[in-house]
């Protein structure tokens, strides 16, 4: 039951300057771990390093007990990035984006099978976007886009969900729905690692909190204290999809 699902040992990451110095994090099966910390403290960097998206300067990562380098069982992982990817040059429907969550489970790409369709439909229902399935994602609000990304991760029916600020810009009702979806996910044996600034309705679901500060995990244990309410006036919303990058032949940056 309590086998480690994601483990970072003495992880260090540096971009231009060091961001993480010596991070030790173990997420065990069945846990719901919240990663807290100030903007720029390295929360995203830490979970991205845990998924192999950012190279570690030092230390090791193990997923489901397998060193990252040898890990192949990606279907067990669902990832919700902080932002939608750069590929917005051509419209894509909500259904198309969520369906790509099935790719880790399908071998060679062919037509979606009945099982794929069911999982996609279920994931869309969980985030209450069933009626928007044929709409282009660009036409959705920031919060709805965030829910689309959550549905994409859920559609893969993973064992571990890694979410980077899944509730940023998501309204209270959808946060409740998301908390319920997480509860169901954990009840069926899932494990969750999520970054958040305010836990809100997620609070009761969280089993452990870690705080990233100054390149290390400064706190690991109970949730420190209730964070401010999501809809607090003057609260600075981190909007995942706000301004588009200026177009260039690069696409990014």
């Amino acid at each position, binding site marked *: 039951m309590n086998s480690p699902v994601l483990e970072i040992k003495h992880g260090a990451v540096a971009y231009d300057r060091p961001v993480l110095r010596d991070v030790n994090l173990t997420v065990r099966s069945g846990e719901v771990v919240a990663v807290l910390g100030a903007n720029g403290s390295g929360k995203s960097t830490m979970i991205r390093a845990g998924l192999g998206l950012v190279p570690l300067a030092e230390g090791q990562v193990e997923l489901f007990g397998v060193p990252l380098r040898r890990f192949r069982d*990606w279907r067990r992982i669902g990832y919700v990035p902080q932002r939608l*990817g750069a*590929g917005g040059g051509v419209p*894509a429907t909500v259904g198309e984006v969520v369906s790509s969550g099935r790719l*880790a489970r*399908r071998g060679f790409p062919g037509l979606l099978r009945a099982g794929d369709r069911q999982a996609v439909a279920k994931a869309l229902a969980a985030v209450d976007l069933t*009626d928007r399935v*044929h709409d282009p994602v660009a036409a959705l609000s920031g919060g709805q886009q965030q829910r689309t990304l959550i549905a994409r991760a859920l559609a893969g029916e993973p064992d571990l969900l890694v979410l980077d600020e899944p509730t940023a810009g998501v309204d209270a009702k959808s946060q409740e729905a998301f908390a319920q979806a997480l509860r169901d996910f954990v009840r069926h044996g899932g494990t969750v690692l999520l970054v958040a600034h305010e836990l809100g309705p997620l609070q009761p679901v969280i089993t452990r909190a870690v705080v990233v500060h100054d390149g290390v995990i400064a706190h690991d244990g109970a949730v420190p204290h209730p964070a401010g309410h999501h809809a607090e006036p003057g609260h600075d919303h981190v909007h995942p999809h706000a301004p588009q990058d200026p177009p260039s032949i*690069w696409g990014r940056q």
Partner: protein
Amino acid sequence: MNVNLIEIMSLPFMQRALLGALITGLIAPSLGIYLVQRRMSLIGDGIGHIALTGVGVGLLTGTSPVLTAIIVSALGAVAVELIRERGRTSGDIALAILFYGGIAGGVFLVGLAPGKGSANLTSYLFGSLLTTSAMDLITIAILGACVLAVTVGLRPWLFAICQDEEYAKVSGLPVRTLNLLLAVMTAVTVTVAMRSVGLLLVSALMVVPVAAAQLVSRGFGGTMTLAMLGGVISAGVGILTSAGYDTAPGATIVLAAIALFVLVAAVGAVLRRRRRADTGPAAVCDPPECVLDS
């Protein structure tokens, strides 16, 4: 003029030209859509520049320019992909050097080739559909089939890597391999299109039909289907028009694609205005979400 057109189109070389153009019209947007998705629409143009060096190498060494163009532009496309992967801003400059080096190198090498004048160069820069031989057509068909097998057959994977590369990595897709495959297919498409529209206009046929399609479609699959249809229509209309007026086929095809874009934009605008007038302002959010939470 009509009878004249039928007469012209019954000539075998015109039929080969038409077929070659139709194949190009089909495959160029099917590849271009991924470049547009990544907001790298102009990359096709750059690969076209690099292909000219390949042509120069072919003419100089007496090998098939198509073969050398594929090899050199594939190398160039892989280099572009490696620069993109790094994501450095200075990559912009590296691309400029690569692209202009490509076209200058091509012109330079063609100049060195014995007895190959500027007329030859023009045929690669702006297309030379009318001289398509049966053998050329077979090459175009085979290369076109390879491109389609990748762009259509691997669509869910390519869609995923162009939509959200990091997510694709976490899905366990062979992202690097797919990116390189896409780069090589871009080079192949450029070389195929070199015949019909020429290296300087290649990018137009990759991008303009996609731009027209996304004016009316809501999803990626729909955009791809419509773009390929639009590419074929532009190629057909372009060839017939160029036969009727005796204009350069490549340029006429590109103008047909742009005309299609303008037409779709105009019709789309009219339809949208009418729809808005019919239904009034549409509800833009789920009703419960309109309630402010306390």
